[in-house]
């Protein structure tokens, strides 16, 4: 098993993590350490626990054993520096909200119940819209966007939230080539700004171009490290139980 070099105070430290559904473990005894400034792909066959890992880090699933430390502290729900992005089919695209309104939601954790929107909040929203090139469509209802713009709008919400860890569940699913490229560019821009991105991903094609680091799961951790090393045919054989054509 490969691991990253030991880094003092990693942003995300997972040790001995087991998460179960109705006592059937989906992932067991995972130990993973990740630092900021990486775009990490989470790979594995169906049922390998990709979504489970993402949801556990988001605080949506309770660990059965082990711990998740974020910035050296136990993970808790409601931390503004974690942004969870749902799968596309979990979103009500008919919801009466514009792109700008969606990005404004990212400021809510900072505002609490009563605080009014300040100039500082508006700046953060403007900045996020600009960074993800959503300015021209900011007034549009979210359904009237292309698939890639929709994903970018959710990234912009996370940016406005000032998140440091981005958790994305299959964001490339259903995107065409052009939209996928634009999304990859946006993810890399976030990585280059020192964010940690954890992205569950189905396809092994172009994995190296998308992710500098990879985690390969099959219920347990098969490998973790630089993408090229992790997705070696020996590891894939181990994870998928059969030879996989990785394109």
């Amino acid at each position, binding site marked *: 098993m490969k691991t990253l070099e030991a880094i003092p105070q990693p942003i995300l430290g997972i040790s001995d993590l087991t998460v179960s559904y109705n006592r059937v473990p989906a992932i067991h005894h995972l130990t993973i350490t990740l630092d900021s400034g990486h775009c990490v792909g989470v790979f594995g066959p169906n049922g390998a626990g990709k979504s489970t890992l993402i*949801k556990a880090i*988001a*605080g*949506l699933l309770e660990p059965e054993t082990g711990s998740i430390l974020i910035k050296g502290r136990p993970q*808790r*729900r*409601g*931390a*503004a520096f*974690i942004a*969870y*992005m*749902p799968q596309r089919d*979990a*979103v*009500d695209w008919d*919801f*009466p*909200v*514009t792109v700008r*309104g969606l990005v404004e*939601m990212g400021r*809510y*954790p900072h*505002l609490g*119940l*009563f605080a009014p929107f300040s100039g500082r909040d508006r700046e953060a929203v403007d900045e996020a819209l600009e960074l993800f090139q959503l300015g*021209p*469509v900011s007034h*549009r*209802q979210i359904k*009237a966007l*292309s698939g890639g713009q929709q994903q970018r709008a959710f990234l912009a919400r996370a940016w406005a939230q000032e998140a440091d860890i981005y958790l994305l569940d299959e964001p490339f699913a259903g995107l*065409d*080539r052009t939209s996928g490229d634009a999304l990859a560019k946006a993810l890399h821009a976030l990585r280059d700004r020192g964010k940690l991105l954890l992205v569950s991903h189905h396809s092994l094609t172009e994995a190296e171009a998308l992710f500098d680091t990879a985690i390969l799961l099959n219920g347990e951790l098969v490998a973790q490290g630089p993408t090229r090393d992790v997705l070696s045919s020996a590891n894939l054989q181990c994870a998928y139980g059969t030879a996989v054509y990785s394109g």
Partner: protein
Amino acid sequence: MNLHTITNALSEPFGYAFMQRAFLSCALIGFTNGFLGTFVILRRQALLADALSHSLLPGVAVAAIFVGLSPGGLLLGGLVAAMMVALGGQLIARNSRLKDETAVASLYIIAFALGIVLIRFSKVRVDLTHFLFGNILGVGDGDLWIAYGAAFITLSTLTLLQRQLIITLFDGAVARASGIRVSLIETLLMCLIVLGLVASLQAVGVLLSIGLLILPAATAYLLTDSFPKMLWSGALIGMICSVAGLFLSYHANISSGPCIILVLALLLGTAYLFSPRYGILMSSRRRGHLHDESLERWEGHQGHDHHLPGPRE
């Protein structure tokens, strides 16, 4: 009809104290339930709310048996009965093979039948149709206080929790991940729905109370893409249509409930057909695509590739 007759027709009902109370009560409840309706619709709980509205009846009947027609008693009875159906439904769904909508539907229809039977035993001689379709002309001061109270509680709670509610409605998983207690918010919303239903009993009755909750917000949903606009226009539509329906009911001498619902329905039908954005008859007048976007892509392609975009492989 000249101006004088119209003014007369409009001002005549206000000459009676009971009509003044009725108008005030209608306006308050119409506004409040129209406001609340946005949350019900976006949470896709229209049918649950309908089930709850039916389950008010046995509570109201039990109250009528023990304390007569006191507004406080009816409110309490309705609240308890609806809560029992709502929570009982959840309990059954959790403990048995029945799914929650089956459990709630079974319970509410049983409750409704029980209510019809129980009403026969009420102390005061009371017409079942008043409970089923409303009797706004019987609004007393007590009912008016309930309307004030319901409006105050509902509007202030929804306004205070607006941010949490928006995130919860839009995306439950993200709401949970960001530390919002989603189940608490959902229970609270259900309590407000029951309160809204009970408060509208006098105006529209058990069977039609769901209409004040759903129709104004459904109309607003077809008209706007902005959450705050949907909230406030739902409230205004609810208020205006309730008052207009009451006028109609006064002059046509028909129960207020059906009149109010039909006025709301007229507006919903109009929005369904003619809403500039989402009306089904307006689609032919809309542009087939978002022109500026295709222009943008076109320019983008030309800038990068220096050739025209061909069909994609």
